[in-house]
């Protein structure tokens, strides 16, 4: 199958990769660029586990063709914060017990980051709406909402 060269800025570093016209951003991130922190839960836009920031906006990577991300910036969970420099959301998810199996966590934190970027002080209902495309089967959502609402203000990025 014919492939096309493309470039994306993944978590701050420009990467070149050859993709087919049919490949999704999710497939390319996980299988060709090694971004295993992006999870695949349904591959058709129902669960939100593969959410990434595409030029700052949260999208489902499984519903985005890889070529749509050509020349753009993609941020995954690992681009939001690391062990050396954890993001306040990561600290808050850990502190509030918002992580159980952890499979929805990458998409949840990415979606929460996009929310806080446009609304630094969201109420619980705004948080519920923002994460309504991210399914979680373990927590019942309460501790996730607690974690997003109570990101410590001095930590706000």
């Amino acid at each position: 199958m014919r492939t096309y060269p493309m470039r994306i800025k993944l978590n701050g570093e420009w990467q070149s990769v050859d993709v087919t016209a049919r490949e999704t951003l999710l497939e390319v991130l996980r299988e060709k660029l090694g971004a295993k922190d992006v999870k695949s839960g349904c591959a058709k836009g129902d669960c939100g586990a593969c959410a990434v920031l595409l030029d700052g906006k949260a999208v489902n990577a499984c519903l985005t063709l890889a070529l749509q991300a050509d020349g753009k910036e993609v941020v995954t969970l690992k681009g939001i914060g690391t062990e050396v420099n954890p993001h306040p959301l990561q600290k808050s998810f850990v502190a509030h017990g918002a992580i159980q199996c952890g499979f929805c966590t990458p998409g949840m934190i990415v979606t929460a980051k996009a929310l806080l970027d446009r609304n630094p002080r969201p109420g619980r209902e705004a948080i519920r709406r923002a994460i309504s495309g991210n399914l979680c089967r373990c927590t019942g959502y309460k501790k996730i909402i607690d974690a997003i609402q109570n990101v410590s203000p001095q930590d706000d990025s």
Partner: protein
Amino acid sequence: MSDIKLVGRLFSGDYKIIGKPMPRHDAWDKAFGKTQYADDFTLPGMLYGKVLRSRYPAAHILSIDTRDAEQLAGVEAVMTAKDVPNNETVTRFGQTHEVGGFEGMYRVLADKKVRFMGEGVALVAAKTRELAEEAIKRIRVEYEPLPGVFDPMEAMKPESFQVGEGESNVVCRYQVRKGDVEKGFAKSDVVIENTYRVPFVDHAYLEPESGVAWVDENGVVTIRVGTQIIEHFRGVAEVLGLSHNKVRVIGAMMGGGFGGKEDITVETYLALLAWKTKKPVKMTYTREESIACHGKRHPYVMTYRTGATKDGKLKALEADLISDAGAYVYLSPWVLLYSTVDATGPYDIPHVKVDAATVLTNNTFTSAFRGFGAPQVCFAYESQMDELAARLNLSPLEIRKKNYLKKDKALATGRVLDHHVAFPETAEKAMAALGEPSKPRSSAEKTGRGIASSMTSYGRLVFLHDTSRSFVGMEMDGSLMVRCGVQDLGAGQASSLAQIAAEVLGVPMEDVSVYIADSALTPLAGTTTATRQLYMSGNATLKAAMEVRKNLLDKAGEMLEAKPDELEIADRKISVTDDPTRTVSTARVVKACASAGIPLHHMAQFNAPSRELLDFKTGQGQVFPDFTFGTHAAEVSVDVETGQVSVLRLISCYDVGQSINRLSVEGQLEGGTVQGMGYGLMEHVILEKGVTLTPSLAEFVIPTAVDTPDVETLILESGDGIGPFGAKGIGEPSLVSAAPAVASAVCDAIGTRICELPLTPERVMKAVKGI
């Protein structure tokens, strides 16, 4: 011999780590995206496996032609039933103790006949996922479709279509007999009778079934897989015709399990393909495969008749339970046994008659799902209680309080409850927490509230003689190592063991490393099912840690010139309790032990209390080790113009015995409640003549954040469980009474009872309009 004497409070009660809210030991890795789930793992030269699945729910296979697939470049293996060394195995529900009469035939790949739509017919392994998919398309299977049977009531009839080959569609029957129900009904002033129905439900864990297998340098077939049971290595070995020690299963961190990763998923397929190709192979189910082809929660039809005197005392209960086992037996007999024992709920009833059957059909097979037969009957018996209350002009709380079981009372099976029974307090507290009723927000809205209680077992059936093992060792610097075969499905199974070892040996959590779930390298700890791991492996870890502690305290006693029972161990040091100036670092004591040849590690085995088989004719005997008691309360708002239900409040009140990690306990209660709410209101895998009509998460819907209120948890700690430090299990119990509580609240709002889950807007509208 049982080790139950270990149980109970070991210390004066001032725990440093037990019962505290704290992040789990693995939370940071998950927050940084470092955890390697099954599909995140890759090996060089890895192939991709794929399953060809049956297009019919019932058909004869006339021929399979794999030549086109085999000729495709990049395809390295194509396998059908004839290539599987032992394609038919008998699954036995016993880990260490053989039990007769509960065996079900399990077929790796369909042979001559397919029994459900999506049954595995052939396997391929190819260099890429796309090639594997292409190869699947090139396999030609000639089917002769058969009529099939899709309704368990039909399937029970002697003249019905036969799902299997030569055996009855009725897999098994149980009964419980206590007193004389006809006498009981004669003494009743009110008798309520109704038939209740509950649907197929999918686990919908976010992580689909997945694994990677390879043959290692010693010729051992090694499978790294998301599973609740690494001990399936034995079953896989039998399929391959290998000895048990030639198959190794490594359990990856799971993205949820809920019982759905209890049966074998991809393990056998992967082992066959890796064995044949001698290359690593990965297989990950699509979401559609996960929903349509793997085990579901059992649908039940439950006919209940309950009688009470006019002052609300229960006199008699008669229940007839029929469950749809789907196309293969799997765990259906066991799920049914749980339902049979739980059929009377947490109530003291003098006359009881329960009859139960599970029946094969050509639907997707059904098996374990959080609650394991308890949620189905809870909806039925709690609906009966509400109907009785309404007829007798009693409140739902009043009628329950008149009938709750108490300590020293017996279940209908004769089992005497010998530990604290948290009724009526869980019900009173849950109801009180609802506070003042909410007001409807518009004239189209009606509000209502309801409660439901349950008792749910934790720990496996007592005639299975359950055991678990755990290893605790202290390193030379005083840090701790726990090795235990526990599988972690995301509920914090491994982290609780770290907490227990840290408490007993006086180190902070960050000093503990935990290695889990490797059938070759970690002591086998049994299944992560039946809400048994904290109870079983928690006790094993406690026992092992206590042995190490004893050695440390003996040596420290010599060093501090004190008796061992005058010492305490905390914060990495050992001190004389009454004279804290006399203290020594634990690391120094460790070195002293090492020079003296005193062991610093111990592997302990915990044996659960066990009994012989119950009497299946009367249902009399002990079935479960212990129970967890609790109550849900709910308040809902119903839009009577659309049938839409909004859940305004959800309260969960449970006696957990003793919290090990407060955050984890709250997490279980909150998550279980919301999963139960989904069961009550929206979750329904719809099958029509064996075809799954809801194969994705767009059709099989589960609660999202906007459907879900903040669950309020009320945690009671009686200290009277049989787990470590007096803990009880909470994983499964936390779900059981949530759906009935929500259903009860909906019925209270609209004034009509709906006897079938889920309470979709359509069903609510029909009830409102009296259709």
